[in-house]
């Protein structure tokens, strides 16, 4: 199973080598990758439908309890089949859709990276590895949305999507760590037994909220939904694959996966019902005002995701069955509608629904696919969509309280979704064909066969629902519920309320289709409310951040080195002063100090003289030289206190520093009085305060009891373990060798930085 997950990544990396081949005429061959994965997962159906759960574990970071453990059960099989199945069609479709595109190889790399990440996400049984794959899907989605990287709007949308889903990922990590700490394990399958302890613990609310945040941002729930319409800037295969069929369902998957662990509480049910309900209605109403086909589909996707969250919130067996069925139904019809939109866009050059009509004359097979997709989407019998819709109504009707609010919301949403399906799947194909589209011709098979495959599957499943039931739905439900009753999916449920609701949906939806004609006027109407939309509010907040950080940066980083140094020292003085004067006993025990010697007094006097000379000197070179004297005086001090290594290093460093200063200052004009006296006094006072604070601190440190354990260890073992008698050097090259290695890297980076900065400037000057 590890290979199955990694195959996508391996292919993505191998594009570096075989990119030319993938870009060329044989690009359709890359379809073989998702196809082979699809076959691999299909082969598990007999085992899974018997109720088996397949687990495989590979050790990854054992010291952190992180394992690559995969679990294939009904739920993950359903998602895996969707990912690889739709993946196969999208890979094939892409080879024609982006034929000859300059970066087709890159596109395939991102796409297969995404497929690998998504498979890893749904198969993971370890929370941490699940998080890693979760982030990888966000990152590959970022690359795919911004695929047309020459367009500003694309880049902006990609960044928004990454921002929102990345924030969600952070919440997920927080929730995962908390949950893992609480349960004492990161294995999801082991947490199920601990469900009662987890839901009754005090950190449950925080964990649930963090998981909600993660799922809602990924699955575009209100108020995080706005990144999804923006993500439609991506090429259509991406919208099909990531932003309707698979990635946006990652949040749904997360909620489903944790239903047996975190579900079954009032918080869980009510939050999901409310958020899902608001999302499905909010997005459904937005559909009416859209004229861009992909915009319509984006909002109907958000609405469908809302329904799914709503159903998980209901949480009864009926609702969860409805949820699983609707996941399949939605993937089938929404993916085909997106693919159809892509064909229309590809052939006519527009996605504006007000201009498209009568295309069935020229694009017959596509029209058939569109019509069938609309039927599945609308839940017209005998398609699989009808079963899905029926189950949703029944789940709402049997929930108990607030029945009519829940069912009313679902009914309104379903009516609007019915309308959306017909606008996207039927409207472009009927009516009078405009003359400008008369030259449109049927594209190659690789474009129109994938949507036909999907819709026929949707129709066939309507007649033989037990195929889906035994293979996917029943094993899936067993994962989600602790105790299940037997159930059967069927088309005909007899005359009941759900059937009446279905009839209402179809009747009102059809009526809406004829009455509500999409127009630009309506679109402009809704744009007036843009100011109060969540998108705008978030954008305003981010703009505020930019303004704030500009102000902040300009204040502290104003380009004067002395200002920087003064800020740093001033801040340190404040913090140090606060700690010293609040927490410390200022009295010192003078008896522990050793007596002053003549040398020490002489050196200190030398230092003071040198410092005063530096401060009042009128010549730069003299100031630098006397600074050097201070340094050398320090070397002497080190020598007296028997630290010859330190003294030698300090001596060489000081020499080099003085040389450096001299080199730079030598060419500068004569010493000018640059700063005002007030500023000089200010800085002087600051320096004295800082020096005094440091002195107090050092004196206090001396009085603390010394922990000599490490010193003794080094002293005793320097020769035994590292065969060296100079402890300082042994520490540098052996005990703390890694530190030294990294420090030398820092040194190299600094040298390269100086070299790069100065040489670069020299060259531009040369150009002038």
């Amino acid at each position, binding site marked *: 199973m590890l290979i199955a997950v990694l195959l996508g990544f391996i292919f993505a990396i191998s594009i570096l080598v075989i990119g030319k081949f993938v870009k060329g005429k044989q690009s359709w061959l890359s379809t073989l990758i998702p196809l082979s994965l699809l076959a691999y997962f299909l082969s598990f159906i007999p085992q899974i439908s018997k109720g088996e759960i397949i687990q495989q574990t590979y050790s990854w970071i054992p010291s952190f309890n992180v394992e690559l453990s995969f679990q294939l059960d009904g739920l993950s099989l359903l998602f895996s089949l969707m990912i690889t199945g739709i993946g196969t069609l999208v890979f094939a479709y892409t080879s024609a859709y982006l034929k000859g595109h300059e970066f087709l190889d890159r596109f395939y790399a991102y796409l297969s990276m995404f497929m690998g990440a998504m498979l890893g996400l749904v198969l993971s049984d370890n929370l941490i590895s699940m998080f890693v794959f979760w982030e990888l899907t966000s990152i590959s989605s970022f690359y795919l949305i911004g695929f047309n990287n020459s367009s500003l709007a694309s880049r902006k949308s990609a960044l928004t999507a990454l921002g929102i889903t990345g924030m969600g990922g952070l919440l997920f990590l927080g929730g995962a760590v908390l949950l893992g700490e609480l349960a004492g394990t990161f294995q999801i399958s082991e947490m199920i037994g601990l469900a009662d302890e987890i839901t009754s613990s005090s950190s449950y609310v925080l964990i649930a909220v963090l998981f909600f945040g993660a799922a809602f941002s990924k699955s575009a729930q209100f108020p995080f939904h706005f990144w999804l319409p923006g993500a439609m800037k991506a090429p259509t295969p991406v919208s099909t694959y990531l932003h309707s069929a698979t990635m946006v369902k990652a949040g749904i998957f997360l909620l489903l996966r944790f239903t047996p662990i975190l579900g079954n509480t009032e918080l869980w049910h009510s939050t999901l019902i409310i958020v899902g309900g608001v999302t499905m209605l909010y997005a459904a109403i937005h559909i009416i005002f859209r004229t861009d086909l992909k915009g319509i589909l984006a909002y109907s996707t958000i609405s469908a995701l809302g329904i799914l969250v709503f159903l998980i919130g209901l949480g009864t067996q009926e609702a969860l069955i409805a949820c699983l069925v609707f996941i399949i139904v939605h993937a089938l019809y929404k993916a085909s509608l997106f693919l159809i939109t892509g064909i229309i866009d590809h052939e006519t050059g527009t996605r504006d629904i007000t201009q498209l009509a009568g295309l069935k004359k020229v694009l017959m097979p596509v029209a058939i696919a569109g019509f069938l997709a609309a039927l599945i989407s609308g839940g017209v019998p005998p398609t699989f969509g009808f079963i899905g819709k029926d189950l949703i109504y029944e789940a709402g009707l049997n929930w108990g309280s607030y029945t009519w609010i829940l069912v009313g919301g679902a009914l309104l949403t379903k009516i609007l979704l019915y309308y959306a399906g017909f606008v996207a799947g039927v409207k472009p194909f009927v009516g009078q064909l405009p003359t400008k589209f008369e030259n449109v011709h049927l594209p190659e098979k690789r474009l129109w066969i994938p949507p036909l495959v999907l819709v026929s599957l949707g129709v066939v499943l309507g007649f033989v629902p037990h195929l889906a039931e035994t293979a996917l739905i029943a094993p899936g439900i067993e994962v989600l519920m602790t105790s299940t009753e037997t159930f059967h999916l069927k088309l005909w449920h007899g005359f009941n309320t759900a059937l009446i609701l279905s009839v209402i949906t179809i009747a009102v939806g059809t009526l809406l289709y004829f009455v509500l004609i999409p127009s630009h006027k309506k679109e402009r109407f809704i744009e007036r409310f843009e100011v109060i939309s969540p998108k705008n509010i978030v954008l305003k907040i981010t703009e505020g951040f930019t303004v704030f950080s500009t102000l902040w940066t300009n204040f502290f980083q104003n380009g004067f080195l002395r200002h920087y140094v003064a800020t740093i020292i001033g801040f340190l003085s404040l913090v140090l002063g606060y700690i010293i004067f609040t927490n410390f006993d200022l009295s010192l025990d003078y008896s522990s100090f050793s007596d002053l010697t003549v040398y020490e007094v002489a050196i200190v006097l030398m230092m003071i003289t040198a410092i005063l000379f530096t401060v009042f000197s009128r010549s730069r070179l003299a100031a630098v030289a006397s600074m050097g004297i201070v340094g050398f005086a320090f070397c002497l001090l080190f020598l007296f206190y028997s630290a010859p290594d330190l003294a030698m290093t300090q001596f*060489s460093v000081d020499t080099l520093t003085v040389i450096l200063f001299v080199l730079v200052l030598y060419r500068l004009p004569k010493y000018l009085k640059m700063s005002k006296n007030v500023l000089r006094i200010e800085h002087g006072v600051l320096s004295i305060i800082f020096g005094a604070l440091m002195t107090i601190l050092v004196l206090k440190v001396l009085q603390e009891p010394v922990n000599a354990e490490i010193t003794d260890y080094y002293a005793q073992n320097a020769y035994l373990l590292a065969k060296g008698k100079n402890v*300082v050097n042994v520490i540098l090259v052996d005990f703390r060798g890694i530190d030294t290695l990294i420090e030398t890297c820092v040194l190299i980076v600094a040298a390269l930085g100086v070299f790069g900065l100065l040489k670069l400037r020299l060259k531009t000057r040369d150009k002038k």
Partner: protein
Amino acid sequence: MKTIILRTASDFLLPVLLLFSVFILLRGHYLPGGGFIGGLVASIAFVLDAFANGLENTKKLLKLHPGFLMPFGLTLSVLAAISPIFFGGQPIMTGLWAEDPIPVIGSIGSALFFDIGVYLIVIGASLTIIFTISESA
């Protein structure tokens, strides 16, 4: 700053100082010294030469830009650090030592090569910084 005395002296001082820096490098394991200090002394030797004879002449003397010492030094250090992996799969930074000491140099071990790497990096980095700044000042 081209005085005859300094120029004459530096011609003798350069080899002596370089030898001294190597001496400091080698004795580091038992007595005060080591790669870092040795590297600083060596770069001071070159800087002194540059003061006396001019930067251009020192560069000619070096043939290669001192920056090239940095990757060599880093490679040497890293190799010394990871060498225990290849000698019996010990953890990195384990000290490996030859059994018999060599005359003049003393015991040879991975730590010595590590220190030589540090020595080269310090020379390379400090000379790169000083040369670059003095060229553009």
